[in-house]
């Protein structure tokens, strides 16, 4: 537009550059904001870990109590054996048929081996295992094992990340608070680490 003079273009450029410069300083602040968010998330994680450890203790106490009850029950003479064995002989074929039908329909892979394995498993199992909910107890113990594995693996990751972040955030790039965003030290050009924000007093000294 011929109406816009060179001096006006220059003034617009200056204004635009001022804005860009502000945004540049915001970009540096943005790094610090993310750092603060990482530290905040890490504090929340540590609090959550404490809660997890308490919950794990309660869960494992309950599991111990369950296993104790199961042991005491197993120690008692079985008084309903005949009844249970009779029922078991009729339960097994139904269970096998139901399971193999499910497996063929849903799991879509060879059921020959699985069928023999199941036959062996049922012949080795006793109705008392059922009657004492042995399957539910074993399922809980399996969950406990998996949960322990998952937490250990997550902890391993977090410990390594926390160590690296602690080292990174100790650098003065992060620890110096800007006294005034216009006082960016040109000293930064000479130093290995970008400690470009110094309080004025440091500059005077």
């Amino acid at each position, binding site marked *: 537009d011929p109406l816009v003079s060179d001096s006006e273009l220059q003034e617009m450029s200056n204004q635009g550059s001022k804005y860009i410069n502000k945004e540049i300083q915001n970009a540096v602040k943005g790094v610090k904001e993310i750092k603060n968010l990482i530290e905040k998330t890490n504090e929340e994680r540590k609090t959550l870990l404490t809660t997890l450890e308490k919950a794990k203790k309660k869960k494992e106490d309950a599991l111990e109590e369950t296993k104790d009850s199961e042991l005491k029950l197993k120690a008692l003479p079985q008084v309903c054996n005949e009844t249970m064995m009779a029922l078991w002989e009729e339960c097994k074929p139904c269970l096998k048929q139901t399971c193999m039908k499910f497996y063929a329909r849903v799991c879509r892979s060879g059921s020959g081996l699985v069928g023999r394995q199941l036959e062996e498993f049922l012949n080795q199992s006793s109705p008392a295992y059922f009657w004492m909910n042995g399957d539910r107890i074993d399922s809980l113990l399996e969950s406990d094992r998996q949960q322990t594995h*998952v937490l250990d693996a997550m902890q391993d990751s977090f410990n390594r990340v926390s160590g690296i972040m602690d080292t990174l955030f100790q650098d003065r790039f992060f620890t110096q608070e800007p006294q005034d965003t216009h006082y960016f030290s040109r000293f930064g050009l000479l130093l290995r680490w970008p400690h470009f924000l110094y309080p004025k007093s440091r500059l005077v000294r």
Partner: protein
Amino acid sequence: SILPLSPFGSLGFHDDMFQPFFEMIHQAQEAMEPHFHRPAFQPLGKDFTKEVPDNRTVCKEIRRNSTGCLRMKDQCEKCREILSVDCSANNPAQAKLRQELNDSLQVAELLTQKYNELLQSYQRKMFSTSSLLNQLNDQFSWVSRLANLTQGDDQAYLHVSTVSTHNSDSDTPSGATEVVVKLFDSDPITVIMPEEVSRDNPKFMDTVAEKALQEYRKKNRE
């Protein structure tokens, strides 16, 4: 002596000073990433300890040691009858112990479920930390690029080369202002300002600069 500080206060550091930072952030990302692909790190589903897990889990259990079949005991009448056999007549102690077992089993199942929910929260913390590391890396890349771009003494980062208003014949909305700027080392960037924001508006150039910077940063990411 302290070098004269430019009125804009340039960043005053080399972009390669960030190299150690990038290396550390990448190490942290590596410490985080691989685990997410391990089976143990598949997001813990609700069924982790739920009574009826998903089919995939049942198939796995059946293949592994047939215990998955026991979950189907409720579909067989004679199996259900085993669970309801009452031995208390012959042995009251046994019935009492069995009740205790069932009660503690229910508590253990409840606590396992609660623990699993906490594990899921913990896993979400992991995902947020991973996302923040990616943001930190991205932001550092940007600041490092700016460090490179602001090495020179010229603090005029943005140059307006042309300003034109549009009447109805062009494809730009009529009354809009088209401003072509160069930002740092960029090719010319064209910013279209709507009629509502006129050149007299004190925010005009801030808005132009903001749009140009967004465009520049987008290109920089690409």
